[in-house]
């Protein structure tokens, strides 16, 4: 670079090298970049609007929207946004083929990863239904200390029960059931009642005879057992018709558990 000063710099062709077919140096017009930004912001608004509109339509107008609509629309918009970023901000549109190929192959690998894993984990119960059921035992979860793990590492097998029940019991023991109920459910659970697509497969694996201890009764409450009157199927329908009923229903349910 001893003669750097002689180098006449040409903005349109900084290297004078465009004839050799390499793609590295493209100066994207600012209008394009700004346009892409605006498009991205527009799609962001659109995807939020779509989600909110769907929620509104279900609650206020009682529309029945299949569960897949939501995810397909949201992911579709995200893909468009991602495509815009990749093509213009990341300049894949102007880039050499190898980088484009690389990016596509990467996405293919991601697709493979998720699809094949889902193929297994979501298809366990074809032959024997109880294969897909859920039994909680083993691991570290058979054991929880007094308050979640807030007191340090949880000891294996020192206590038993699903975390959320234990946490609730602790709260009630500490503050009383009235306080618990008064606290209510201030959080927005909005989306949870949209369609029946969100419901778990029935956990048909449990046999009361095999595990007749207190732990498992907790699980029985409201988790898709056919014999359970307070199953979530019912909740779902209730909410779809009457959003206000929501909190009361759950509080009753919880109270019921308390009496066990």
């Amino acid at each position, binding site marked *: 670079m001893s003669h750097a000063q002689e180098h006449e710099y040409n903005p349109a062709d900084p290297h004078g090298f465009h004839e050799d077919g390499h793609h590295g140096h493209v100066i994207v017009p600012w209008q394009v970049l700004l346009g892409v930004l605006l498009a991205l912001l527009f799609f962001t608004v659109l995807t939020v609007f779509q989600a909110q509109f769907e929620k509104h339509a279900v609650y206020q107008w009682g529309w029945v929207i299949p569960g897949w609509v939501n995810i397909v629309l949201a992911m579709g918009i995200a893909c468009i946004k991602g495509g815009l970023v990749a093509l213009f901000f990341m300049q894949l549109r102007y880039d050499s083929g190898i980088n484009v190929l690389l990016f596509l192959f990467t996405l293919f690998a991601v697709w493979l990863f998720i699809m094949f894993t889902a193929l297994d984990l979501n298809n366990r119960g074809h032959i024997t239904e109880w294969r897909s059921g859920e039994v909680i035992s083993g691991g570290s979860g*058979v054991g929880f200390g007094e308050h979640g793990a807030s007191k340090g590492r949880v000891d294996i097998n020192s206590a038993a029960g699903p975390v959320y029940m234990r946490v609730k019991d602790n709260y009630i023991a500490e503050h009383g059931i009235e306080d618990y109920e008064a606290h209510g459910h201030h959080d927005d659970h909005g989306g949870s009642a949209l369609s029946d697509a969100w419901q778990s497969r029935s956990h048909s694996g449990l046999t009361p005879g095999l*595990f007749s*201890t207190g732990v498992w009764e907790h699980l029985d409450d409201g988790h898709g057992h056919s014999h359970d009157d307070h199953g979530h199927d019912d909740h779902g329908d209730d909410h779809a018709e009457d959003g206000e009923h929501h909190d009361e229903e759950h509080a009753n349910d919880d109270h019921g558990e308390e009496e066990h």
Partner: protein
Amino acid sequence: MTATLAGINDFVIKLFFGQKADSLVGSGLGGSDAVFLFIWWVSVFFFVLLMGIMGYCMVKYRRREGVPAEPSPSHNTPLEIAWSVIPSLLLAVMFFWGFNGYMKAQMAPSYAEQIDLIGQKWAWSMTYSTGIGASEFTTLGGNNNVPIFVVPAETPVRLRMNSADVIHAFWVPDFRTKLDVMPNRYTPYVFTANALDRSGADDRVQTTTDKKGNEYAYRDHIVYCAEYCGDSHSEMVAVLRVVEPSYYQTWLNTPPYGVTTEPVEVGALVWQAKCAVCHTVDGGVSTGPTWKDAWGYSREFTNADSLTQEMIDRDPMEWDNYIRESIILPGAKVRAGFTNAMPSFDGQLSDVEMRGVIAYMRSLSDRDPGTPIPGYPELEAEAAELEAAEEGGE
């Protein structure tokens, strides 16, 4: 010719497996033994072919000084296509045949005998439809308390398997199939054991008499845990005892113990079935503390207040409670010098069994209720009285 081939096949099977498969999944036309033989012959063919050509070339085309290598084609498309396509067809056969056999090991008819199986560090336990479990034990390898599980011959059996801690795998090599035992869901182990050959040709078929005096024929198969599960992984074995279906029904309806059995006897059985992997009763070292001379002694814990002699002397029941708590929540009190390795047996022991374990531990201690606890003979008498009343009430 056919007979010779069959003889060679039998030899190959004997060489690899020791004997033919003892279940429907393994034997028969669609069984895995047949698939294995098919793969064996394909492999032998290709291996001999390739090594033959290699050996021939090694001799024929070895380097001679001053003689250049003869020119030869650098590729041959028809040949290359042929050696890609022909193996592919053979592979397709393997896949379909293998898949067929695999499905047999997954599917059971609706009338199959269903038995619950729990895998746990480091023992297997079965619960039959009548609520009973293994009642006899044997020695296998380094494990002196290997449970014997009785199963019927010629009857489809489906084990509903579940693990209480980590992943295990239930493998009966003689049945040629295994499946993982998962902590968060059930998995099925399906088999139909072949009939007992009572002609005397099969020296594994033997006859014995059970505790009730019934004579029965049986054939034993070893069960291994095939998924690595820790310290005593290699001792996590069991024996699957195949019996005649008729005897199986008899056995099923004669529980090894009931409410009238001596609690100490029940406790000893439970110990063999579930506890012997980690707890010795002769003072020996193992994963967990020994039960010999344990009951009634003070204990230090790593994660709880110690059980002092004073507390025990005040109320010997403290020790009984400690046993009970440790069975249900093993991590609540971990004895000093040991790690928290014990899985929870919550829900696995009936009241009878729980009481049996406590009674058995008492009987192993030199401080058991028979020996007056120094200073508190009247309390001790009261406790014994209470226990007697309780037992009488059952």
